[in-house]
């Protein structure tokens, strides 16, 4: 590239400022986890690890963490299936209403969570309830998957757009059935894109509060537990411990994914090694 020395220095400075902006508050959360006092004053006067013990002995935290993990996995699986199917259809076929799909898929994440939440709650109460679906893990997954589909869909479709449909045909010509074609031809091309999508979907689900408030019923996911604990000031320090724990825990999936797919894929990188299809304008 043509960046001058000065540009590079300025860019580095800009990147540094943004990184500092991102990480200083997180650092503070980490520090407050060791704050002995209940109130979050500054500067911190006494440090202690007492809240760690409280957090690890808290049964509610453990239950909430478990429910969050289950909901995250459930929502991720559902959105993987739905997102991949929709992406395959849109990228490989031209059909009436095709445009609507990418629009409809984006809508749940683009419209405010409170609207999605209220809408789902009203529907669960009035429609699904009488049909036998009550609030709980299933409804949490229902809500989360609805807005997680988009991240899988986007990653998959970006990848499919760059890979050739002719490969699928070649596979079929060589005698593979649909499943085999998917398993041996399409999936390897899609794998890192799906992984990136799945990871983001899980992260979105794991930290979701607003929709969950309306779809969880009496159940508590981790964010719901945190939200409830905010109104119990005496337990507030435990929240910081849990947050720190979750941040540290998240290194594991991110690291594994990076190993498998390369960090580029995590940022929804569009370039793939391998056959690249000419980008054909899809607009009629």
């Amino acid at each position: 590239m043509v960046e001058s020395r000065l540009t590079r220095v300025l860019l580095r400075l800009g990147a540094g400022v943004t990184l500092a902006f991102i990480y200083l508050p997180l650092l503070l959360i980490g520090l407050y986890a060791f704050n002995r006092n209940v109130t979050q004053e500054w500067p911190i006067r006494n440090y202690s690890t007492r809240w760690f013990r409280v957090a690890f002995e808290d049964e509610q935290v453990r239950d909430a963490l478990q429910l969050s993990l289950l909901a995250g996995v459930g929502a991720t699986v559902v959105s993987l299936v739905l997102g991949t199917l929709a992406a395959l259809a849109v990228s490989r076929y031209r059909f009436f209403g095709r445009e609507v799909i990418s629009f409809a898929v984006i809508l749940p994440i683009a419209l405010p969570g409170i609207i999605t939440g209220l809408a789902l709650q009203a529907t669960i109460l009035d429609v699904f309830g009488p049909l036998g679906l009550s609030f709980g893990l299933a409804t949490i997954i229902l809500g989360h998957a609805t807005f997680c589909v988009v991240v899988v869909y986007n990653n998959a479709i970006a990848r499919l757009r760059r890979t050739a449909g002719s490969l699928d045909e070649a596979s079929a010509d060589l005698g593979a059935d649909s499943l085999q074609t998917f398993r041996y031809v399409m999936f390897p091309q899609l794998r890192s894109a799906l992984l990136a999508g799945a990871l983001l979907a899980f992260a979105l689900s794991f930290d979701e509060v607003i929709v969950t408030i309306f779809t969880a019923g009496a159940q508590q996911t981790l964010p719901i537990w945190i939200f409830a604990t905010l109104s119990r000031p005496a337990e507030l320090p435990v929240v910081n411990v849990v947050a720190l724990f979750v941040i540290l825990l998240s290194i594991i999936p991110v690291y594994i994914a990076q190993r498998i797919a390369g960090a580029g894929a995590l940022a929804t990188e569009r370039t793939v090694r391998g056959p690249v299809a000419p980008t054909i304008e899809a607009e009629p």
Partner: protein
Amino acid sequence: MTGGRHRLALWTALGLVVTALAVVAAGCGGGDDGGSASTEIEGLGSSLEEIQELAREEGEVNVVQWAGYAQLTDEFKAATGCTVNTKDGGSSDDMISLIQTGEYDGVSASGNASVRLMTTGDVAPINTEFIPNYADVQEGIKGKDYNSLDGEPYGVPHGRGPNYLMFRTDEVAESTDSWSVIWEDDELAKYKGKISIYDDSIFIADAAVYLKATQPELGIDNPYFLDDEQFNAAVELLKKQAAAGVNYWPGDVAKQISEYTNGDSVVGTTWPYQYLQLTNADPAVPVSAIKPKEGTTGWSDTWMIYSEAANPNCMYLWMNHMIAPEAQAAVAEGFGEAPVNLKACELTENENHCSEFHADDESWWEDIYYWTTPTADCGDDRGEVCKTQEEWEAAWTEIRG
């Protein structure tokens, strides 16, 4: 391009219409409101022994409560086998929404929730035979508008308390004894941006309480039943206050506690709970909380059972538990309120708690107006001219701006 967009619009519209019809058709089927007032809840035992037996099978109870209300849950579980799962509501509206999801067995309802819940049939009347401790509840609190309907008790009275005026003693004179600090122009200017107000339409009543004392010509009697003129005067007062810069605290009390701790708020309205949290903090925050001379609003809460409770037996035992002397003492001190079962007074850690909260001094409560639901019917000879809950809420949105 244009064709594509037209088709998009067409498809979206078509899809919406079709699903709308389908869903509405499905939804209209299930909308029956069986508001029958019967103490017989499906699955409830027919004797105390049977209730205790069935409760062990249920094994849990889900309740909506004010933060800090549920107490001695471990002891309750040991005695009955019921695990207590609590959900904090931040306002009466919150609690009504939560109970109407059908996921909870009961609720600790203040008057502005209980009246509505009884009318809608979301809560059921109780059979006091199965709640032995009911006999120990102060007679003066039984049979009120906010805990019974047509003479039938709905739930067990649980405790009552005042909404205090709280201020930081390093910023506001300790001799303060009037609500004027949050209403009068010169005071508002002094505490600009540092006034802490409960974020709920029911707070309009607090303005009415002040007007009742300072503008007798308005003729306000009950601060929850306001006709046009009275209501507008209260709303004007609140708008003036809002313009001065107010920190509204939602039901999650932590916001107010952190503001008082950091000095972002120095004067305002509060529950005894926050006052206790602040004075018990380490280091203690220098605050004082009083019942001003004009009187104040307050609450008298009732544990009620959801009319389609999934765990009615545990809920019955829970209601009995919460008015037992031990739990009463724990809540009274933990949340900061007067118990309704005076046997609790011997069990509180602070042996003066009951006298400090005037548990058996009715005269102290005379100028405390318990939260209730505003209705068009003023309850006096003015007739149906008072502002409804809905109008209070709409006004509150405008006051907040």
